[in-house]
């Protein structure tokens, strides 16, 4: 009987091809929107996870606080000094204390200089981020060398540079040929010690668009002998002791800067946490957008119901004939329910295909990834729509009295 109902339903659908296609469209749009949005959401959160991995594990960043205006209760003896130079090399070294900071593995000072232009012959490259740092920085941030060598302690104050892969690739076709050559950074000559392995682009910012010089060199050549650090990178001993490490940093720096939690002139950020927050935000946004797409699916379902009601009215006489020749209520319900199911499931399948198509494009650096569960869910949801929105019209058809249906003109 099911096979029969399917055959009857198919002939009903093909009798009004254009209308069936338009009805299906509502479901197609809804399903493809849901699939694509969830795929983009998954792609975004993948990208963020990727970035977390590239940032280096167990990393805490100590930054200067945005506002230092509140430092009035601090000790007056050191107040003047620390107000202008919140983070110093001394601070960084103080953090490397096995007694006071047992959970800190290693630290690195960072002096950051914006808008440095590298030039080699006629090739130039504007480096997004030029850092003066110590050798430990590379380990903390998961940078590895592709050619040449990393900076070591012996380089302190020397004009040597390690180039990020994107910078190197812009200066020479074969990056390994750069090693030992002299490049100019803002007009000052540096010897290329090594080229870093690419981390790969993820999202909008390129982690390979960097250059590192020894900390002392940076102060000497770029930041005008300012003793102030942009930040201190701290690596905890493991991901499990991040909170402890953070507390130790705060204890040490609070004491050194003579501040309390209410008026800190620095802040400790857990980059991974920041990104996790971003992930949560992304997920919330994804759910919200999918809910909107879900509403369009609901509208599509109402469209199916509307058309099924029209179909039932149009075919009242046919229903009467079928009842006269022996169709039971169940037969009629089945016929129309199968019809609405076919329309919705067909719409669901086309929607899934379109969703896959749309998700194969990379949008703003995000590679959408279709989640398989959304595919199964879509099939289930479109079948559910067919059922829910088909049952009322089908029942209406089945409840018709044969005598009334036969009289219908």
């Amino acid at each position, binding site marked *: 009987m099911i096979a029969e109902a399917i055959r009857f339903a198919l*002939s009903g659908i093909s009798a009004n091809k254009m209308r069936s296609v338009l009805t299906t469209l509502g479901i197609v749009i809804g399903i493809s929107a849901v699939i694509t949005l969830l795929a983009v959401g998954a792609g975004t959160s993948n990208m963020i996870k990727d970035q977390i991995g590239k940032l280096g594990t167990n990393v805490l960043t100590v930054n200067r606080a945005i506002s230092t205006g509140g430092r009035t209760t601090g000790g007056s003896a050191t107040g003047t000094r620390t107000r202008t130079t919140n983070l110093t090399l001394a601070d960084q070294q103080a953090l490397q204390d096995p007694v006071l900071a047992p959970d800190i593995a290693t630290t690195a000072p960072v002096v950051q200089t914006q808008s440095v232009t590298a030039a080699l012959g006629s090739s130039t490259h504007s480096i997004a981020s030029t850092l003066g740092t110590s050798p430990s920085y590379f380990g903390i941030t998961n940078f590895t060398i592709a050619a040449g060598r990393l900076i070591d302690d012996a380089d302190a104050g020397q004009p040597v540079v390690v180039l990020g892969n994107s910078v190197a690739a812009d200066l020479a076709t074969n990056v390994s040929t750069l090693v030992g050559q002299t490049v100019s950074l803002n007009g000052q000559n540096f010897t290329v010690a090594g080229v870093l392995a690419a981390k790969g682009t993820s999202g909008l910012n390129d982690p390979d668009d960097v250059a590192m010089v020894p900390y002392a060199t940076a102060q000497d050549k770029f930041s005008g002998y300012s003793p102030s650090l942009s930040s201190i990178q701290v690596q905890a001993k493991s991901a499990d002791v991040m909170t402890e490490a953070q507390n130790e940093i705060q204890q040490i720096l609070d004491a050194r800067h003579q501040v309390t939690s209410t008026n800190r002139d620095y802040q400790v950020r857990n980059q991974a946490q920041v990104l996790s927050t971003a992930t949560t935000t992304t997920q919330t946004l994804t759910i919200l957008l999918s809910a909107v797409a879900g509403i369009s699916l609901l509208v599509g379902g109402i469209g199916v119901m509307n058309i099924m009601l029209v179909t039932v009215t149009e075919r009242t006489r046919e229903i009467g*004939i079928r009842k*006269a020749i022996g169709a039971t*209520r169940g037969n009629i319900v089945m016929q129309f329910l199968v019809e609405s199911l076919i329309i919705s499931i067909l719409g669901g399948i086309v929607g899934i295909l379109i969703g896959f198509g749309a998700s194969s494009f990379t949008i703003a650096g995000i590679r959408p990834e279709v989640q398989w569960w959304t595919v199964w869910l879509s099939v289930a949801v479109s079948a559910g729509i067919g059922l829910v929105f088909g049952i009322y019209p089908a029942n209406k058809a089945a409840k018709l009295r044969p005598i009334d249906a036969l009289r219908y003109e």
Partner: protein
Amino acid sequence: MQSAHARRPRPVIALDRIRKVYGQGEAEVRALDGVSLTIERGEFVAIVGASGSGKSTMMNIIGCLDAPTSGRYFMDGIETGELDEYQLAQIRNRKIGFVFQSFNLIPRTRAVDNVAMPLAYRKVHRRERHALALEALDAVGLSARAGHLPSQLSGGQQQRVAIARALVTEPVLLLADEPTGALDTHSSEEILDLFGMLHARGRTIVMITHEPDVAARAERVVRMQDGQVIADTGTATAQAAYHAAGGTR
């Protein structure tokens, strides 16, 4: 009536004081006003009467498409008043074949599929259904048109397809409401010849008609007026008894 039931083979139709009232109060219409009628197996009965006399109403009740307001109706020995909707659908499917004035074929469906449809509701296998439908089409002389759509057939041909559909389930009763009403003289003749042939083979036929010459083709004529049977030439057995008694009742 019960004793008569026991002696003779059970009648195909037994109406017992059937009333059908439409509307209420001022607007009340007694479409059927106490009709009792028995139709035996193998009879060919024409029901005639003026427009509005209740013929179609009676037809719908006989065909289990509508329920009487009061009175009892035995279809092939089964009291229909006690049946639920599902069982009534089964009765319509197994015991009755309908032929309507307006053919009532299902549009966009091939003749052979139209004919096979009652069998589909009877869970007959598809291949067997097809074979039986072709056989039925052959019996009405339309096997050459099996693959045609209703819209590709003439009125007479459509009505013959409808008859094939009515017959494909081997029903105990063929019920026809003005089967020639929408046809020209020639096609009407064809349909009536078909009915005559079916009658000769022992099929029970009840046919509603306006036209006296169509009614003349039946062996028994029931005349209706204002919801009541006002004349009945009687069953074959009754007619025989009537003639044996010298034409007086």
